[in-house]
């Protein structure tokens, strides 16, 4: 599988009056064509900031991408998105990389009609005229499952229900047939039945349009039915990465294990209380030079407090950043 996106050593920080926030501290990953890669982690782990950094959507006065490369592959051509000029990057946004945001109520402009918000994307990237853009927008509304799309073209966001708004957002994101779709917790603000519909819609569109999808969530439960590979993040770093089945069957990082333990599972019915991960999230103002999870880790030993564990491939395609080998119950002796 050829990679469509290669991110290397991404570092993003926010310089605020209260201090510097180290949101992303060296994240690397590949996104392969047509795959769904899930970013999983709790609030503040850097998953959203990573995604926003890729397309330069980090608010610039406080935020800055300090280091790294984001290579987008386009046939023969490869381009580092972090080094593109603003007009070139603008072209990529919406045109090649589409974004779905978490809260469709606040992510849609309240004073423009839904149709207009789709059409303007078409007009900008595909150069369509007004009438053609309108026609295509109506088709898109239909495709994402919004009933009566002709009439709904002129409706405003506040006239839609939550699930419909999210569908509209999806229509906007895929309007120009992007090669990559980044979905930032698109189902978090929706109720459970609607969640399933949205997930299904995205899956359909993915295969139809041949997109690669980055799906960001804090909910490991959704990921199972959705992703090809999963990347677990903590404290601005990737702590584990594996194909989805491998992750669920043999999680290697104590944090992942904790997350899975905190997940209600059908095969554990009545097995007592859900495991909770003790402790508080890491301090992003002053990241310590050790494993970010050490303070909360039941398996931490002295090495964990001295160095940051690198992300290492233990088994083919299964990487983990941990000095402790949960399988053997002892310190890992290689690397």
């Amino acid at each position: 599988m050829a990679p469509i996106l290669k991110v290397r050593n991404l570092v993003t920080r926010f310089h605020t009056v209260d201090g510097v926030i180290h949101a992303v501290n060296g994240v690397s990953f590949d996104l392969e064509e047509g795959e769904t890669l899930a970013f999983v982690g709790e609030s503040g782990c850097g998953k959203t900031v990573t995604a926003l950094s890729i397309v330069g959507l980090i608010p610039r006065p406080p935020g800055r991408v300090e280091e790294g490369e984001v290579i987008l592959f386009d046939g023969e051509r490869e381009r580092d998105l972090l080094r593109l000029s603003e007009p070139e990057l603008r072209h990529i946004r919406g045109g090649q990389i589409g974004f779905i945001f978490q809260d469709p109520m606040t992510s849609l402009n309240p004073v423009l009609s839904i149709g207009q918000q789709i059409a303007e994307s078409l007009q900008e990237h595909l150069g369509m005229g007004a009438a053609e853009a309108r026609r295509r927008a109506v088709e898109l509304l239909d495709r994402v499952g919004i009933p009566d799309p002709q009439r709904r073209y002129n409706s405003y966001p506040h006239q839609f229900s939550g699930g419909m708004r999210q569908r509209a957002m999806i229509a906007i994101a895929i309007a120009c047939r992007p090669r990559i779709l980044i979905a930032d917790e698109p189902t978090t603000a929706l109720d459970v039945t609607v969640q399933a519909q949205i997930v299904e819609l995205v899956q359909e569109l993915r295969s139809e349009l041949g997109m690669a999808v980055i799906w960001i969530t804090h909910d490991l439960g959704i990921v199972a039915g959705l992703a090809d590979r999963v990347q677990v993040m903590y404290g601005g770093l990737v702590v584990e990465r594996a194909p989805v089945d491998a992750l669920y069957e043999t999680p290697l990082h104590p944090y992942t294990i904790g997350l899975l333990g905190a997940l209600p599972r059908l095969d554990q019915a009545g097995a007592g209380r859900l495991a909770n991960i003790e402790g508080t999230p890491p301090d992003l103002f002053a990241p310590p030079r050790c494993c970010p999870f050490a303070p909360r880790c039941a398996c931490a030993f002295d090495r964990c407090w001295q160095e940051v564990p690198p992300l290492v491939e233990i088994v083919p395609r299964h990487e983990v950043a941990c000095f402790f080998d949960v399988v053997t119950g002892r310190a890992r002796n290689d690397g």
Partner: protein
Amino acid sequence: MQRYLLSRLLQSLAVIFGVFVLVFFMVRLTGDPASLMMPREASPEEVEAFRHAMGFDRPLIVQFLDFTSRAMVGDFGNSLHYRLPALPLILERLPATVELASVALLIAIVFAVPLGLIGGSRPGSVWDAVARAVGLFGQSIPNFWLALILILVFAVRLGWFPSFGRGGPESVVLPAIALGVFTMGQLVRLTRSAVLEIRSEDYIRTAYSKGLRSRVIYVRHILRNAAIPLVSVIGVQFGYMLGGSIYIETIFSWPGLGRLAADSIGVRDFPMVQAIAVFTSFVVVVLNLLTDLAYALIDPRIRYGE
């Protein structure tokens, strides 16, 4: 939307009623409107005759009903000074005030909105500092003093503009600037803060994520949203200018309502003062109602409320 407009209409009617009550009692604040309106040298018999002629000796309720019912058909009584019906005198002066207020508002908008937009879109920059300074000064300068300074510099020393009277287009410039400076300050502040706030909204992030051009985002997305509070304030400010032009018209000898009001106060022509108060309030109320209508039309959340 209908419900919204209906409630605003009812509120406006309440305000008009409140105006009648207030104006009615204003003149009776000292207890005896007759002695208020008569010159101080008048003998008690003259005052008594006057009181009877004006009907001030009737029960208050009767007076109030009479006052209100007459006002509603446009009979605001006669001016003591001019000995003519008040309303026609007012209407005669109205166009001058409207002209002044309109030009002032125009100047304010033309300078304030672009400045606020640029300032709000580049926080921390020179333009932002300029916008904030203009906003602050605009709201702090006493406009009657500014009028004097403008006259001193531009009319007397430089001779570019006339310092009194209403004539050709150049005669409205200085008074309009003086009248509009406060509104300009308000609008700059409002635009700037609206732009700042809207910029950080999620839907603007979405707009950027779609790869739209900066200019499109600013005009179609940001400004369109900022227009909503702006329209409200512009409407209110126009009303403020119509009612608050007393100083400016006096200084520039501008033949409008404000000048008429000031003159009437000077000669203690209180029926005239009353008439102006009612009329101006009425105009302001109608203006506010129109502003509310515009507001409802611009904001689709109100226009097509769920």
